[in-house]
């Protein structure tokens, strides 16, 4: 199978190698066409966003106003903050120029003169690598004013890297924009959407790194070619970041629609000591988990995963074997979303902490069956009621893990917890005075 994003070419990150392998030809080709043609091709290719929501890329581009007196922006989301997701950094490290070329083409298509690549600050190494690639692209006249000469066009654009400061929420597109503007990383209330009111109030398109890296190949080889790869409704390849209990964890580029079992057993080398799989999270921790006994026939693309009650997310596959303590896993996930909730809107601010506290209490042996129902209702009270999708991200793993592993969780809690006072926590405190000792 041909790899679109991470082909097996040595030193492809070097500009000379990239160019000698046909690099920047797609951009050259793009500049012979109109922006609308480019958008049209991307639309027809069926390319869907790789950042989690799998929204149609060409359609998103077409939301950008054709006429406006404001500057337009392209924002490339490389925050990659979803636990279990580590694919964009492969692009930064091994094929940065393809993303840069994609950025140029996208800027041309949507009429942006500036592209920002927002990268999490922890990716210090990859920021340096991408900056080197951008510098080389400038030096070789593929980006910046010199583009005009290189490509024989009137169009030119600039690319800047913006470093994040370590907040999960800044991977959410509207907080990403606030962060980029130098403001607190709070999601914005939508509508208005970025295409109307984005960076500094200007029309903005935000795409994931992997999405953008696909664009040059679509232009170069044509939309028909792309649309025939993988699942027809979610075509192309995906970078699956496989982690957890597998023999060969890593990033695998495979067509959409690949069997989940193939990813685990054929590519990632199976489970250590041939243990059974208890649970798989298919697309980063916020996606609903799949039971280990329901993996047969599950295909990895947006449409197929929807059918089994999950979602593709960022393609971060987390495999857990039969010895995994799912309560601890879920508590750790809940801790993450509690820690990362920005605190702007009520349900997420208050609910995420509550979820974590309940799970911690269950781990401490003070949980009861009714706490499982409580977890689900609290998750339901968060879901759909928040400003941004972090609400769902925090609610889904809890809700679906408890629902789908109800038997497992019921074994971990008592039928009923009888505590001397109504407030369970107070009764757990070392310092609490036993009620019997309290004299009237």
């Amino acid at each position, binding site marked *: 199978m041909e790899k679109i994003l991470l082909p097996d070419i040595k030193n492809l990150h070097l500009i000379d190698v990239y160019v000698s392998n046909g690099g920047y030809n797609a951009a050259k080709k793009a500049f012979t066409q109109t922006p609308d043609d480019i958008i049209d091709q991307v639309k027809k290719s069926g390319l869907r966003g790789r950042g989690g929501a799998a929204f149609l890329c060409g359609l998103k581009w077409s939301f950008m106003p054709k006429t406006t007196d404001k500057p337009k922006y392209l924002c490339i989301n490389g925050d990659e903050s979803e636990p279990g997701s580590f694919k964009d950094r492969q692009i930064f490290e091994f094929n940065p120029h393809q993303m840069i070329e994609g950025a140029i083409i996208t800027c041309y298509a949507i009429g942006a003169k500036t592209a920002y690549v927002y990268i999490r600050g922890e990716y210090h190494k990859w920021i340096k690598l991408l900056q080197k690639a951008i510098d080389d692209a400038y030096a070789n006249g593929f980006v910046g004013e010199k583009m005009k000469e290189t490509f024989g066009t009137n169009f030119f654009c600039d690319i800047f890297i913006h470093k994040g400061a370590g907040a999960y929420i800044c991977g959410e597109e509207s907080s990403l924009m606030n962060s980029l503007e130098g403001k607190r990383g709070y999601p914005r209330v939508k509508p208005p959407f970025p295409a109307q009111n984005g960076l500094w109030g200007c029309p903005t398109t935000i795409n994931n790194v992997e999405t953008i890296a696909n664009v040059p190949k679509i232009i170069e080889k044509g939309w028909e070619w792309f649309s025939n790869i993988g699942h027809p409704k979610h075509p192309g390849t995906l970078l699956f970041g496989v982690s957890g209990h597998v023999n060969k964890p890593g990033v695998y580029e495979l067509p959409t629609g690949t069997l989940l079992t193939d990813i685990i057993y054929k590519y990632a080398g199976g489970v250590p000591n041939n243990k059974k799989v208890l649970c798989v999270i298919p697309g980063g921790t916020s996606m609903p988990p799949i039971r280990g006994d329901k993996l047969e026939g599950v295909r990895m693309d947006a449409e197929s995963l929807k059918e089994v009650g999950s979602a593709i997310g960022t393609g971060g596959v987390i495999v857990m074997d039969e010895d995994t303590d799912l309560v601890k896993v879920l508590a750790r996930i809940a801790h993450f979303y509690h820690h990362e909730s*920005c*605190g702007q809107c009520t349900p997420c*601010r208050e609910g995420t902490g509550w979820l974590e506290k309940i799970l911690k209490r269950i781990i401490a042996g003070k949980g009861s069956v009714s706490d499982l129902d409580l977890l689900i209702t609290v998750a339901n*009270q968060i879901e759909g*009621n928040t400003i941004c999708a972090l609400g769902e991200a925090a609610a889904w793993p809890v809700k679906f893990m408890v629902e789908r592993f109800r038997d497992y969780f019921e074994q971990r809690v008592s039928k009923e917890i009888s505590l001397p006072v109504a407030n369970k926590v107070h009764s757990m405190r070392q310092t609490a005075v036993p009620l019997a000792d309290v004299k009237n």
Partner: protein
Amino acid sequence: MPKIFIDGKEIEFKQGQTIIEAAKDAGIDIPHFCWHPSLSVSGNCRICLVEVEKMPKLVIACSTIAAEGMVVYTQSQKTLAARNAVMEFLLINHPLDCPICDEAGECKLQDYAYEHSIGESRFVEEKVKKEKRVPLGPRVMFDGERCISCSRCIRFCDEIAKDPELTFVQRGDRVTITTYPGEVMDNPYSMNVVDICPVGALTNTDFRFKARVWEMSATKSICNGCARGCNIDIWVRNNEILRLTPRHNESVNSYWMCDHGRLNTFKFVNDSSRIDSPHIRKEGQLVKVGWDEAFAEASSRLKSFSKDEIAVIGSAFATCEDNYLVARFAKSVLGTGHLDFIHHNDPSFEDDILRRSDRTPNSLGAKLVGVRPSKNGLDFNSIIKAISERRIKALYLVEDDTIQNDPEIENILAKLDLLVVHSTNYNKTTDIADIVFPASTYAEKNGTFVNFDGMIQRIKPAVSTLEADRALEGMAMSRLDKFGTRWDRWAQGVKFDARPTWRIISGLSSVMGYKFKYNMAEEVFKDIASGITSFNHLDYDIIGEQGFKIKASVLEKEILE
């Protein structure tokens, strides 16, 4: 006009309005914490989530623009579930310390907990601990645990006070509010955040722990701090003013008032320096006397001067009714045209938000009702000059402290043969006065002020004097006023023996042989309304609670006259 349906009721809306605004105009209250009509939309509290047909998820009414034919449900099962959810979330980490919280009784969270909450919590974990008693500035105290992070205070500083001082810090349920590094919240409008805080997180350092809300009566009045005339409520317990809060009037002060007005314009009312009953100077000392004796003394001494030797000074601190009688007293009873009032201008006080350089509430009103020199009469400066030249020998001064205003005047006033003063409190001018009449304060009488913009506004008694009883006068009453007995502590507040200036003038005139037949301020106003163009056809009911604006053309003509 386009229409939307809210709970089956068809309502009209203006293009561009959000659901919550359209509903508000139609008298439907959609619950809200973070939304405030005068601030930008932040959409963070989520209590206003409503179900809208054809929308996949619930939407927040505060940021969703109303569109023709939209069908909104504010009481559907889904809406109620979301509302209950938000209430439960808001309360899990809230300290629930209503019994010791200043906000209790006027707390949105408390009210909504009764209205929209299921009444019990499933939360059995430990609550988040945050900082308590943090002074954000000299006048505002912050309690992090009570805060529901609605951001109203932050937006107020940014958008209304135009002095960004506050910000969120931390994340998730650790979020709290603090001032920017090196900043304190000391903008001149800082205390408005206490009013707009929907919970007890922000408290007024001057008022906190003084009273429970329901123990006080609230009386609609006007701030006397400057010529803006911000609409206020006067909060009284035990016949003592404990705080002022701004009252909404979009054409005067919106929802706001300045900290100066809030803090420094009411404390004189219950101060120990209040003058209780009339006083006459005998052997160098002011001696307490009855009203009759004071009237008789003033009458006989005033009569000993020729008309041209007497000057009268009205007051921009007094009401139109007061000044109207002062003017008529000067012209008809004393027969003098030497009549004016003192201007108190302080350009450094003015800003482009509310504050005006004219530090009095009624200079326009005083002028309109006739407190100005007649054709050959002297104005204020000329009166002072005439006193120093001994041409004016008697001065009748109403509700102003000339000496405080200009210390050099003290020596000049010493040359007078007679100084009669109406004053609420002892001051440098009463120190040298011969006859002192105790005047009711703005908080103890009915009347009207005219602000710089020609807005006529009413003040009402909030504190009772000996002559004005709460129940008999129909004054606002708290639960304590209504249900307390006379043996209760709160029924034993101090009542001063003071009268409104118009009533004092009326009493004195009667002794001097001139009858004003007024029993109430309203009757004085009736005469003003029939005699003065700017006030034509007006009465107290028409002025109402939101004031009446004199047409600019009428005003201009009248001032030029």
